[in-house]
């Protein structure tokens, strides 16, 4: 920030107006009265946020990813069934450097998984064997560190799965526990490798057979079942970008692009329930949060339970790498725009502002 220099010039000016307020009292008082009304000239336009909005549009085609498509773009990989009947699911992930547009006209020199930020949403089912073939086409050593249960050699840190540019590594472990998780690069310096864009969601759906006490809940979470199909499932990764590398974010968003869901709200069918896989990967700020307008939700911290860990709340707070599942419904609600955003006004004003457009 530029703080004002107190110079003689400024003070001269201040003294003079003051004195003349005395000398020309009538004029001055009318001038002051007039100026009272001069503040607060509000301007509204088509957005619910008025003029508090980025200007222009991000070129999704140029970026190679669309924040709206990301909401439901589950990466399932390829599966094979072994002799023992066990499913092995294989994903391919490539780290690459890529400049991405994070707000209209603002380009960020990102490090990405598969050319997108957040990286692909890897979605598996509890109990599967997972193989993640990781290739590094970037300019720095990188890893994939999964939040899940695995052995030390598969941890995705220096000495356990860190690969230099041009190299390849295969992470292999079982998909557990079920829940809403994430993966990210764990190379050093950590902050830089994280906020440059190397992170993504890692969802493990519960296997209903393993949860006889809550089969219905488990089935509704399992992608591909009819019970799951009636849900409107959405992935939301809360992130931020420090464009001038001063360890403070200039842009906040869900799924990278500032105001993406504000300029083009997410259309919701009010008769079908909503499930949000929410991940916080925001760097530099200790917490981020999610707040819904005009409604409340149940929350499953880490998504590792089939019973909500918090019921009937409208705001949830997450530290970095904390995540969870939000379940809510707009059934019988008045159609229209319902805001959701971080309840840190600072993040809202810097891009983390979104809307559901609830339709009857």
């Amino acid at each position, binding site marked *: *920030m*530029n*703080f*004002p220099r107190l*110079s*003689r*010039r*400024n*003070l*001269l*000016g*201040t*003294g*003079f*107006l*003051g*004195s*003349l*307020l*005395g*000398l*020309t009292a009538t*004029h001055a008082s009318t*001038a002051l009265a007039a*100026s*009272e009304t*001069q*503040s*607060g*000239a*509000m*301007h509204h*336009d088509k957005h619910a946020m008025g*003029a*508090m*909005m*980025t*200007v*222009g549009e991000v070129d999704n085609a140029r970026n190679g990813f669309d924040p709206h498509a990301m909401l439901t773009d589950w990466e399932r990989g390829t599966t094979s069934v072994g002799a023992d009947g066990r499913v092995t699911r294989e994903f391919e992930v490539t780290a690459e450097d890529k400049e991405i547009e*994070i*707000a*209209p*006209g*603002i*380009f*960020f020199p990102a490090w990405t998984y598969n050319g997108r930020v957040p990286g692909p949403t890897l979605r598996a089912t509890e109990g599967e064997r997972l193989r993640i073939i990781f290739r590094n086409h970037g300019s720095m050593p990188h890893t994939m560190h999964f939040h899940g249960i695995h052995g030390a050699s598969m941890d995705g840190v220096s000495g356990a799965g860190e690969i230099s540019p041009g190299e390849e590594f295969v992470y292999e472990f079982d998909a557990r526990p079920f829940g809403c998780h994430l993966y990210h690069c764990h190379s050093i310096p950590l902050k830089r490798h994280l906020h440059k864009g190397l992170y993504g969601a890692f969802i493990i759906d519960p296997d209903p057979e393993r949860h006889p006490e809550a089969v219905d809940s488990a089935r509704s979470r399992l992608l591909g079942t009819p019970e799951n199909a009636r849900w409107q499932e959405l992935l939301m990764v809360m992130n931020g*970008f420090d*464009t*001038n590398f001063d360890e403070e974010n*200039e*842009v906040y968003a869900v799924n990278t692009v*500032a*105001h993406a869901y504000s300029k083009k709200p997410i259309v919701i069918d009010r008769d079908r329930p909503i499930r949000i896989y929410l991940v916080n990967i925001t760097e530099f700020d200790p917490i981020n949060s999610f707040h819904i307008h005009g409604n409340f939700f149940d929350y499953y911290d880490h998504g590792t339970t089939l019973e909500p860990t918090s019921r009937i709340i409208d705001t949830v707070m997450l530290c970095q790498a904390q995540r969870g599942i939000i379940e809510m419904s707009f059934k019988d609600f008045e159609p229209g725009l319902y805001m959701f955003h971080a309840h840190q006004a*600072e993040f*809202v*004003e*810097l*891009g983390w502002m979104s809307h559901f457009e609830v339709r009857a």
Partner: protein
Amino acid sequence: MARMFRVIGPFMLIALVAVAFLKIDPLSRFQDSVPPAEALMIERINIDDDGFRFLVRSEGTDAVSIAQVQVDGAYWQFEQIPPGPIARLGTVWIHIPYPWIHGEAHHVALLTGTGTPFEYSIDVAVPTSQGLGGDWLFYGLVGLFVGFVPVVLGMLFLPAIRQAGPETMGFVLALTMGLLGYLFVDTLAEGLDFAEEAAETFSMREMVWIVALLTGAVLFLIGRRLDNGISPAMLAWTIALGIGLHNLGEGLAIGGALAGGAVALGSFLVIGFTLHNITEGIGIVAPLTGERPGMPLLFGLAALAGLPAVLGLWLGVQAVSPHWGAMAMAVGTGAILQVLIEIALIIRKRYFGEGAARPVGGIVAGGTLGLVLMYATSLIVTA
């Protein structure tokens, strides 16, 4: 033909070297991975019912795009006129419709295509009177009190000075030198302050010195062209010119401060400044003690010295780019420098010539008192 080549030859060689350099481009080795240096500066602000209007200059090595604008840490819609990237040293207007709050501080950041923010603070938001509006009389009045009135008051000391003997006259001339010496330093400092705020590319710090010295030299040489050196009336005119330019600069600064919203109450400050500038009036009439100046001459001198403050205020309120402020101050510095030299020459001729009295004590006392007076009255102003 050969003669012509002697003239054209070096130019051709210069062009050849330039072309060769660009062709070889040895710098490309260093520029490979270096992003273009971006630099934006806000030169002027207007604040009105519609929000903020900024005059933004690009100082980068390449054209700079303003991608987004933050006001108080929030992305805000804005309009750029003309749109598109800003060429090096080019300017655009940024209009931000913003519900600003009267009397409070606002912080603006312009983000370039790389997301680099260039920040600017509005210390106290008050409406700037664009094109002065109906307030030109009000501002003019401030200008009169800053410049014209104190100068006239100071000139009223002429009869008193005139009654003094030659010894006292030396004292008065030295006093004038002291006063002007202070103004010289002050004006130069103000010029350098302006230069600090100006676009770096313009090298205004250097330009202030150069323009000040050049102005001083040119005015001095013009004075030399006159037979017999410079006449007392002429000297008074040049003193008035120097002080006038100084007051123009003060007016610009005060106007800028009013427009920029640096406003606090304290009516005693005006008295301090009036006292401060009264000494300027004494300085102007000091060379005229041996003359019988008529009212038109005295009025003319007062107008030249004092009215530029009014003009300065009017311009300053409309927010003049800082490099113009620096230039005005530099010219004023040069004018004061010339006057200092002229008075020094007069003192030497009158009091240090062959068989002269050499009243060293009185001269030193006068000069010191002049500096002390200016410094003391400036303390009241900055209190």
